[in-house]
């Protein structure tokens, strides 16, 4: 076997198109997983917030989902949803976001000051107006924190779905493993880490844009 340098920059230069395509796929898989996770978590979290009895079973079920090793979960799903399907990948990815999102949304809603809720009710906000105009906006920092954790976790997990023919940047990691080719492994690992850091920063900026009041303080 021919001795290789640790990183072959020429190989990277030759594959820029594919790198971009995999990066885009990585972003898509992540966005879809967190988006669907949020769509499922939000109503469940609101239910748990309003009817407390639902909260323990919800954290119990999503907690179990969260602790299943990802490799095992994909292995369980393959006979039902296919070995190389995006559905298999997404079911796994979504289930890992649920616990984080539900817990953060409920904690955010719980953290809204009681006097603010009482004042809004006293002025004639209906329960839904209270939720949409007061409770959710004020819970945004906690919800955003949950989205950030879920997103960063998912960006890492997406690489594992390379085993299902998905995987975004995970494709390079797998390629490097199979061929003992460190350039590809390093490329996949470093880019997915950079992506996680970048997206985290962007989400912080988005949260700041959405909550202008949290920066306003008495002079």
């Amino acid at each position, binding site marked *: 076997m021919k001795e290789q340098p640790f990183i072959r920059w020429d190989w990277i230069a030759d594959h820029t198109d594919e790198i971009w395509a995999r990066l885009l796929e990585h972003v898509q898989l992540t966005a879809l997983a967190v988006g669907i996770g949020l769509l499922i978590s939000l109503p469940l979290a609101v239910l748990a917030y309003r009817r407390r009895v639902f909260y323990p079973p919800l954290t119990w079920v999503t907690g179990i989902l969260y602790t299943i090793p990802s490799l095992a979960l994909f292995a369980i799903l393959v006979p039902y949803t296919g070995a190389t399907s995006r559905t298999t990948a997404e079911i796994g990815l979504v289930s890992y976001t649920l616990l984080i999102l539900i817990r953060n949304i409920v904690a955010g809603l719980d953290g809204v000051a009681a*006097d*603010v*809720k009482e004042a809004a009710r*006293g*002025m004639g906000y209906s329960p839904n107006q209270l939720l949409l105009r007061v409770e959710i*906006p004020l819970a945004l920092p906690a919800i955003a924190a949950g989205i950030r954790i879920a997103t960063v976790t998912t960006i890492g997990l997406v690489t594992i779905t390379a085993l299902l023919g998905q995987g975004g940047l995970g494709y390079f990691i797998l390629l490097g493993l199979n061929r003992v080719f460190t350039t590809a492994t390093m490329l996949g690992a470093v880019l997915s880490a950079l992506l996680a850091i970048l997206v985290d920063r962007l989400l912080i900026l988005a949260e700041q844009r959405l909550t202008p009041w949290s920066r306003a*303080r*008495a002079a």
Partner: protein
Amino acid sequence: MISLRDVSKIFPGTREPAVRDLTLDISRGEVVVLVGPSGCGKTTTMKMINRLIEPTSGSIEVDGADVLARDPVELRRTIGYVIQNIGLMPHRTVAQNIEMVPRLVGWDRSKIDARTAELIEMLDLDPDLLPRYPSELSGGQRQRVGVARALATDPPVMLMDEPFGAVDPIVRERLQDQFLDLQERIRKTIVFVTHDIDEAIKMADRIAILNLGARVEQYATPAEILSQPANDFVRAFVGIDRGLKRLALARASDVDELIAAVRGDRK
């Protein structure tokens, strides 16, 4: 204007009623202060008027209409409400806070803007504060924004739960004076809850001194309560310095009554 008939409230899981068979009439344009030791049911009583708390039994009328027959959300939009910590929406600007109820009831933009400008003037607030967030205001400013918000749709009835409780004594004094001036002009029917007898004496047209279970020990003008306490509970609650307190009663309309009361006391 507001009448409570045999109103009781028993909270689930408790044996003693928080409010027991309370009957109370409040006339139009009057400031009635509910005062009593903590846990006496004064706040519960107030919150039953806008149905933040549902009475267990009895009837409540506001302006001749049965409160319990109305949709509670609609009802609350017609009654001004101010609480101790004001409860300004931290994510809304001062202007948006003041506009909350007008927007709920669907006023158009020009009417809302005109009313907001009027309220700012009325409460002596700086128009520059309108685009600010509550966290940028002083305690006194927040409190006045809270009152402006409660007055936004000009409701005939206002409920105020220790509205000056969260500010320091000097600011409180000024806010009380300002509020009395305002009330001279707007003549709202106000139910005001406090645990502070001095504040009650200063703000009230009539005071209801409540014992546990919202039992009315005396319901009378401040001057009467000071000069003729109905019983030992009232005497103890008002305190031994009631002679001095009477001197501090500086509202012009009470002067005649005061003089008569003082004379009555001496004979």
